[in-house]
């Protein structure tokens, strides 16, 4: 068993090897990537909690170190599950990538190494170091996507920098105030801290990094373009793995620093700060859901869905209730694998059709049934329908909200859940169902290598929906470690004060229902397949596919309600323009066409200083 430090180093240097291997042979380098991430997954599964390693000197008196915690182990397992599966998918996918493929693989490993460090960092600054490595690596991958990704990458980097510099500011302020930065010591110091304002500042600034990364309102705007534009296979890892770094930092700022003990409760045992965060999560749910309904680009649609799901995770974590927190953690896992399923199936579709616009496709179920199944199970889990695992986490979060009497919050979460039915149906109907276009007649199903990770994820979701014990056990150990009352469960039965949930029973019910439906499907006469143009309307034959496409104006009736919605994207663009204008102003102020301007400034400076000093 090698040390974690060495594993991280293997990843960092492995990125160089991966670059050279991929340069020599695309498939070989990707296999190397997969083997490395899979080994890391195996390693993390067997890692014992409590292990600690010295790292490097941040300053002469401050030593960085790594420690394995249950929380870190949980998050890293989720991460590397995603990374390994996506890496396997990439083995075949990369063959179709015309340029930057070697760099893609190299940065992929770099990102993996950075994330590994984030999850095991024992102090604030070590976490920051690895965090930035992961951000940098992901920033470098994003512009390899389509045209819009160039600008998206910069937006992503800037927003991310905003969050991480707020974090860094808080970290240094803590270092300066207490002289320590390791999470344990800092939380002890924060418990004894008298100044409430300082505690607010620290928690909020540290949470800011997580808020940006997991796409929580009001710093969510980078998500749409970054997810929409980044290379298709990478989007799966981006949404499934990288945004979970944000959830990890949120978990640290809320649970590792014991916010419940630090602040007096406002309402039902939830402090004001957590309540604000719950509301941010709520706004993200609403906003993500309603914006997702509007999108015509399927990747951007699911990007908004990621905003909403980041909201669910935050709501769950911020309750700091035994079931709510568990629900948040479970949702981290669920959203990770859902993202992989959905985005990988999209990657296959985009690879085959060359577009991500919903209304340019249709009927792909006839050509790619397995991809369809992956997407279907993915969205079932995303919408939180039993018997998939997605239901369990959402149920736990709802349960907590209702039990705490937060009915508005709960209502919003329900609206979000119903909304998710709507938006996931749009790609389903527009891309997979409906009429197959003529130009898509000779599309092929994804290759077997691409299908393996997709279908394995499908199996995993269903399996964990029926038998969630492995995940629940991990969550219980995390909660025990963080001093939250552990969740009670008996393998397939989750017990709450509001009653229990037996996954087996539910699965059997759904299975029976499915079998009955299947029998009915066999018994009733089949539908007749007609071509889209094989009909007429108003006496005219149809020639234009797009005009009569299913997905055109799909949810027009809902969208009409908020057509002129306020847009934070526009607001931030305005801020960008604002800074550009200041830049113009400053340039105009100091940069002159004639030397007179410079002498003018010299005189002004002399006069001002002369005036100020005497």
């Amino acid at each position, binding site marked *: 068993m090698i040390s974690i430090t060495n594993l991280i180093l293997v990843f960092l240097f492995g990125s160089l090897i991966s670059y050279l291997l991929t340069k020599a042979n695309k498939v070989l380098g990707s296999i190397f990537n997969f083997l490395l991430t899979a080994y890391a997954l195996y390693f993390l599964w067997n890692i014992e909690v409590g292990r600690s390693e010295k790292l490097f000197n941040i300053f002469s008196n401050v030593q960085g170190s790594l420690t394995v915690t249950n929380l870190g182990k949980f998050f890293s397992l989720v991460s590397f599950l995603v990374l390994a599966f996506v890496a396997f998918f990439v083995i075949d996918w990369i063959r179709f990538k015309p340029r930057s493929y070697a760099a893609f693989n190299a940065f992929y490993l770099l990102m993996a190494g950075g994330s590994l460090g984030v999850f095991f960092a024992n102090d604030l600054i070590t976490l920051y170091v690895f965090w930035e490595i992961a951000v940098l690596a992901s920033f470098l991958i994003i512009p390899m996507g389509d045209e819009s990704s160039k600008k998206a990458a910069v937006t992503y980097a800037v927003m991310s920098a905003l969050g991480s*510099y707020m974090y860094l500011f808080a970290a240094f302020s803590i270092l300066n105030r207490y002289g320590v930065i390791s999470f344990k010591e800092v939380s002890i110091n924060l418990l004894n801290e008298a100044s409430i304002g300082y505690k607010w500042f620290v928690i909020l600034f540290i949470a800011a990094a997580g808020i940006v990364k997991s796409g929580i309102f009001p710093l969510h705007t980078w998500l749409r373009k970054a997810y929409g534009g980044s290379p298709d296979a990478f989007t799966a890892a981006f949404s499934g793995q990288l945004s979970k770094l944000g959830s990890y930092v949120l978990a640290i700022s809320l649970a590792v620093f014991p916010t419940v003990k630090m602040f007096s409760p406002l309402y039902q045992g939830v402090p004001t700060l957590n309540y604000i965060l719950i509301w941010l999560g709520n706004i993200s749910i609403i906003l993500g859901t309603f914006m997702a309904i509007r999108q015509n680009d399927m990747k951007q649609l699911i990007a908004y869905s990621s905003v909403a799901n980041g909201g669910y995770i935050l709501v769950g974590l911020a309750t700091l209730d035994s079931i709510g927190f568990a629900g948040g953690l479970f949702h981290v896992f669920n959203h990770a694998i859902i993202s992989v399923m959905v985005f990988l199936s999209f990657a296959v579709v985009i690879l085959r059709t060359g577009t991500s616009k919903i209304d340019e496709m249709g009927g792909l179920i006839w050509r790619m049934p397995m991809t369809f199944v992956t997407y279907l199970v993915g969205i079932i889990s995303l919408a939180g329908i039993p018997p998939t695992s997605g239901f369990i986490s959402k149920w736990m979060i709802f349960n907590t909200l209702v039990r705490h009497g937060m009915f508005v919050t709960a209502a919003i979460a329900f609206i979000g859940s119903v909304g998710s039915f709507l938006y996931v149906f749009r790609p389903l109907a527009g891309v997979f169902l409906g009429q197959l276009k003529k130009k898509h007649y000779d599309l092929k199903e994804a290759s077997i290598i691409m299908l393996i990770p997709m279908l394995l994820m499908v199996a995993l979701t269903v399996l964990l929906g029926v038998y969630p014990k492995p995940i629940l056990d991990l969550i219980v150990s995390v909660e025990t470690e963080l001093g939250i009352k552990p969740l009670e469960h008996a393998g397939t039965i989750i017990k709450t004060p509001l009653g229990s949930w037996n996954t087996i029973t539910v699965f059997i019910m759904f299975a029976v229902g499915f079998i009955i439906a299947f029998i009915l499907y066999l018994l009733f006469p089949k539908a007749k397949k007609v071509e889209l143009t094989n009909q007429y309307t108003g006496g005219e034959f149809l020639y234009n596919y797009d005009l009569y496409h299913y997905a055109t104006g799909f949810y027009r009736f809902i969208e009409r309600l908020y057509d002129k919605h306020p847009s934070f994207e526009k607001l931030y663009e305005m801020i960008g323009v604002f800074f550009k204008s200041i830049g113009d102003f400053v340039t105009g102020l100091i*940069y002159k066409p004639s030397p007179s301007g410079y002498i003018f400034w010299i005189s002004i400076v002399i006069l001002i200083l002369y005036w100020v000093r005497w």
Partner: protein
Amino acid sequence: MTALLIAIPLLTAFLFVPFKEKAKFILPIIVLINIVLLFNLSINSVEAMGGWKAPFGIVLVLDSASFYTLLVVNIIFLIISLIPQITENGFSILLLILLASTNGLILTGDIFNSFVFLEITAAAAYIIASLKKNYYGAYKYLIVGSIAGGFYLLGAIYSYVGTGSLNFADISLNLNSSFLPFVSLMLFIGLAVETKILPLAGWVPDVYASGSPLTPAILGTGVTFTMMYLLGRIFITIFNGYFLDVLYIFGLLTLILAEIAAFRQEKLLKALAFSSIAQAGLVLSTISLNTYDAIKAGYFHLLNDATAKIILFVIAATVVGNFMKNKTAGISFSIASFSLIGFPIFAGFRSKLLILQSSFEKGDYLLPTVLLFSTIIEAAYLLKWNVRLWHNENEETKQIPWNIVLITLILALLIIFIGIFPDLYLKVSENITDGLMNYKAYVTTVLGGM
């Protein structure tokens, strides 16, 4: 012996006036001789020119600060001299003169002498600035530079009036508060133009963005380093931290305003020129915190900035089209810009952490806030330029000469090395800080235990 550091390049420069073409080859040799000579000199030695002892004559002082600054500046000249393509015919002689005058500026222990070297440095800089037919920009620089030089001279003379001496150590012994404000104001104006402090740095975009790689590569690194050293020498060693609060404010303003202006620029070289101004502001406000850690962090950051800026300017001025055909140069460029932003494992991260820590230690929350905020803006434009240069569809890409690629690559690897093991640069900046802050030792060295 110490005087040879100035004399050798100066003499060679005049000897090679008839053989302009050959000067290209003599430049690295002279710089190497200088570096070797430097290592044979003992630290804390004082050489009195013409046998006139301090405080009556001009002295050349080699303490730990000037030794390491000389080392840094000479190595920068060595790096530049190894890229002869960027030096147009005849400009090698100017580089030799510039080398002599910067060496003199670093070594001198006399305020009038420092004015003379400042003017020679500036004169060489004007001519270098006129490369690529940038005569108008150079002329503007000349006007503002000469006026600033005039003010510096006024300050120097007024300090003679106030203390009856021109010797740095002697001036600092006879400090009295009645003449200090005027002197420090005048010297600040003189130095602010050269160190690129904002309202007075309007000449920078024109000069640095002329399209010649040599101009910004040498003026933005070697000369800036020299000027920053001189500024530290005057305001920290001699004036004992007087006037530093003013410098602090000017530094902060420079940092934030120049970053915003750089964000606006449509041309890469102009953006980098403003970035150079901003970094000078950051270093200035850091060293004006006037604690050991802060000054160390400031000069450490200056070193990192110089390393990164050589790469950035040289590649930005030579690259045509995109990086896809110049991958190595592109990687060096990206590494340099990541270091400038302060991503971990690159050198800039280390120095920015140190700056943050030292300013928090001092109880100053303004500098970290401004620094982090301006870093966001810096990240925005540097990353934007990186993405543009890597991912554009420009077909007319030219190959960058191999020695530029090699040297920038070595510097880029150095940035990563410093990011992981910062001890090398830290040692240099620690020594500079020791020399600058230890005012008593300086006075004793120069005046001989008075």
